[in-house]
């Protein structure tokens, strides 16, 4: 019987150089696994693989040297530990994320909650080519948002609250883009310079800032055979509902316009940046 490699690949089984051996990619969301899942992965790697796993460049785990005949047994064993196979090929891939505000002092958004939401909404969705989402919690950009087809970066939009300010001047120095100046005990915020990093608010002894935690979204990033940085073409996105509407619009644009095997950036370039920007702006404006 002929082996259907495309179907296997879709189910996370990646053909190895070694005949009849597959590296099984697992479903990981936002780079988090429970200890129970890790224990099951270790057990399966020992029993069905060669005793090692590979951590992929996009926060997944692969178990190499799985034999073709063991595939069903492996899937069942993993399911006992709440572990599912991942995907490869032309579809929505692993949603990656940094630790975000629940863990990291620099985080501006709950990246893991967002990763789970995007995973439930889009994971494995069939598209003309691969489509990668990446979520980073702040301007430090540990997760490299702009190298994804759709990158999301957490930010904090601030406005000064005079009544709570004691004029210490810490925020002026904490700002790395020169957006804050202080004169006669008054704070001036240059909104054209502010990059939503939130450092002023986080450093402020009295937290004398009103804040909106939101998202900076980039489109068309690539970091493979071609390299291109995703573009941010819309203003700061202030709520999650709007963010989801924008993600939906981007995916639909790709689905409707891409040629098979064409990455998002090249679809945008071919169809026209203006047309794409209009589509996204429409979603942004609701």
């Amino acid at each position, binding site marked *: 019987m002929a082996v259907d490699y495309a179907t296997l690949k879709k189910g996370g089984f990646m053909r190895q150089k070694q005949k009849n051996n597959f590296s099984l990619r697992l479903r990981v969301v936002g780079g988090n696994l429970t200890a129970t899942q890790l224990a099951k992965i270790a057990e399966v790697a020992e029993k069905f693989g060669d005793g090692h796993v590979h951590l992929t460049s996009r926060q997944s785990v692969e178990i190499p040297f799985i034999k073709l005949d063991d595939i069903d047994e492996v899937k069942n064993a993993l399911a006992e530990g709440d572990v599912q196979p991942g995907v490869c090929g032309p579809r929505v891939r692993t949603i990656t994320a940094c630790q975000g505000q629940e863990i990291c002092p620099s985080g501006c958004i709950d990246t893991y909650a967002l990763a789970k939401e995007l995973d439930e909404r889009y994971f494995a969705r069939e598209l003309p080519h691969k489509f990668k989402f990446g979520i980073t919690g702040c301007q430090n950009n540990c997760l490299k948002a702009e190298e994804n087809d759709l990158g999301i970066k957490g930010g904090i939009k601030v406005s000064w609250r005079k009544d709570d300010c004691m004029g*210490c001047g*810490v925020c002026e120095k*904490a700002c*790395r883009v020169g957006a804050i100046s202080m004169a006669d005990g008054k704070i001036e915020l240059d909104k054209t310079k502010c990059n939503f990093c939130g450092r002023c608010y986080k450093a402020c*002894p009295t937290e004398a800032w009103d804040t909106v935690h939101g998202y900076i979204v980039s489109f068309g990033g690539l970091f493979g055979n071609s390299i291109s940085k995703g573009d941010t073409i819309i203003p700061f996105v202030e709520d999650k509902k709007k963010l989801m509407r924008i993600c939906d619009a981007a995916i639909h644009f790709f689905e409707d316009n891409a040629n098979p095997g064409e990455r998002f950036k090249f679809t945008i370039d071919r169809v026209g940046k203006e047309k794409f920007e209009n589509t996204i702006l429409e979603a942004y404006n609701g």
Partner: protein
Amino acid sequence: MADFIIDDTVDITDVVCPTTFVKAKIALEELDEGQILSVRMNDGEPVQNVPRSIKEEGHQILKLIDNGDGTYDLIVKKVGD
């Protein structure tokens, strides 16, 4: 802002990150709750980061004074034991 009486001073201009924060933290540990420490630090990375680190430790920042010579004095009130 009311005036404050400085109980102790520490100079962290002779060290680099992360020792800057460590040195300030050790100086704060020597104090009693409510006492005030003046921390002298350099412009650039120390003044960008040290105030926030001290805030995150739970202490109260009262003032940042620009000495006009490329150094700043951060006035901190110790909170907790």
